[in-house]
């Protein structure tokens, strides 16, 4: 069987591209062929991903469309008679970006507006979470399924032994993810400032991720310096090893994001045994299960108190660690591979009459 993957863009540090490349490896292991093409390709990708014009599928070949942004050039593939599977990687609502990055806002806006056209033209639409799949049904998808993010903790190395933090070592609160308005690092900095002033004067906050643009990054840095001078460190462009080190030295991962399709850092934190405090938005409750302290409250004082508990209560930490390991097991990469294979075979069988 041939399965061709179609992406809007491809780059060496792009999460969707790395998912597509992982899927290509899986498909190669299954003896499936196909090419990966994208509308725009970072030159650093070499020949791993080809331009759209390189795709000339036979009628029975499956087209796997990765939908993550406005991609008008991909629409022509919807007209082809091939079996089609769409995997939605979730497009953030544009309202978060109009003030900060109008160009990105337009792309998010059009990306969400054009989603119905895509999901109605494919045989099966898959979300990376049940939350995401529900959005696809709202957009008019006839059939949906869930193919979770392929999470392989081995990428980040060993988790290390279970341990409680050294009481003499000041707590480190960690955030991992892009620095963007909807992820609300501004709220996290405020909650951290209260935690530091009232509960743990030596605490530090690590914000790891690329800012949506330099102005936004500078605004967050200024806020951090104003509310918690010298206590907030920003990190970007980290290698897997450096990121793993940040997890290993963290006492708590805190994510107050307002919109998440999946939220991989939760699983990464669980892998390293780091307790999680998170806002129950989008796909977060589904991924976190019972293994995180979910806080819907807007009050930064409540978040500060939860940070205090998650950083200092040994019984709570041990319980969360155990539950977190179970969540990592629930997102075993083998299960994701099986879900992908089942979805591809389903659309192939539906159109071609055979699996």
């Amino acid at each position, binding site marked *: 069987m041939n399965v061709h993957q179609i992406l809007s863009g491809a780059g060496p540090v792009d999460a969707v591209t790395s998912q597509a490349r992982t899927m290509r490896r899986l498909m190669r292991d299954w003896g499936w062929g196909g090419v990966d093409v994208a509308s725009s390709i970072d030159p650093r990708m070499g020949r791993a991903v080809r331009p759209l014009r390189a795709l000339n599928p036979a009628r029975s070949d499956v087209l796997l469309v990765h939908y993550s942004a406005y991609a008008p050039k991909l629409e022509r593939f919807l007209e082809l008679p091939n079996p089609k599977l769409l995997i939605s990687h979730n497009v953030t609502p544009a309202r978060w970006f109009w003030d900060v990055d109008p160009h990105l806002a337009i792309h998010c806006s059009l990306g969400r507006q054009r989603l119905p056209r895509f999901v109605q033209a494919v045989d099966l639409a898959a979300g990376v979470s049940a939350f995401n799949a529900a959005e696809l049904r709202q957009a008019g998808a006839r059939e949906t399924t869930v193919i979770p993010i392929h999470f392989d903790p081995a990428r980040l190395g060993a988790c290390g032994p279970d341990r409680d933090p050294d009481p003499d070592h000041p707590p480190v609160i960690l955030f991992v993810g892009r620095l963007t308005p909807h992820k609300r690092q501004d709220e996290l900095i405020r909650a951290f400032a209260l935690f530091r002033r009232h509960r743990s004067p030596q605490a530090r906050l690590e914000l790891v991720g690329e800012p949506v643009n330099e*102005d936004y990054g500078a*605004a967050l840095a200024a806020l951090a310096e104003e509310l918690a001078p010298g206590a907030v460190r920003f990190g970007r462009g980290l290698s897997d090893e450096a990121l793993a080190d940040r997890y290993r030295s963290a006492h708590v991962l805190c994510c107050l994001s307002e919109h998440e399709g999946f939220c991989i850092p939760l699983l990464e934190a669980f892998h390293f045994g780091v307790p999680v405090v998170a806002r129950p938005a989008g796909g977060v409750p589904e991924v976190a299960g019972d293994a995180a302290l979910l806080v819907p409250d807007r009050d930064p004082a409540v978040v500060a*108190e939860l940070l205090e508990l998650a950083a200092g209560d040994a019984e709570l930490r041990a319980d969360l660690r155990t539950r977190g390991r179970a969540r990592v097991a629930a997102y075993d990469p083998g299960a994701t591979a099986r879900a992908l294979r089942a979805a591809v075979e389903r659309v192939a069988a539906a159109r071609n009459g055979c699996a």
Partner: protein
Amino acid sequence: MKPEQALAHAREQARAARERGEYSEDLSGFQVQVPDRRSHEQLVEWALIEPDLDLVRSTRAWGAPITALKRGAVHVLRQYLAQIESQQSRFNVHMLVRVAELEDRMADLEQWAGRREPGEYGRVDPDGAAARLARDLDVQPAGGDELPERHRPDLPPAP
């Protein structure tokens, strides 16, 4: 403590701390804002487009010379780019004024026809085409509460 008890405990602790006078400091500063709707002043500000030269840059390795090259290209083309900016801004501003006028006239007509109380201007029909478009594009409607009174003529009572 069990994880299921943590949130209630944190809320109680925060409440008790506030009673002791803690958590009362000023946390003002940069804050992400997602307003329900955009004011006319905000739209006017956006209508006058002003690209920032500082954001023209390269993020690649050895990006500094590429950044300099890009900024040099913008500088060389500044007369041409100024035309694009000014023509686009001209259209944006005139379109905004035209929309504001229509809002004015619509509000007056609705009031005249008895569909709105005085002062209740610019309410967007939630099922109307404008509201649907705003939802599709995730654009907050401008609303019309800020319309200046001076534009509203005295109208005879509705028949």
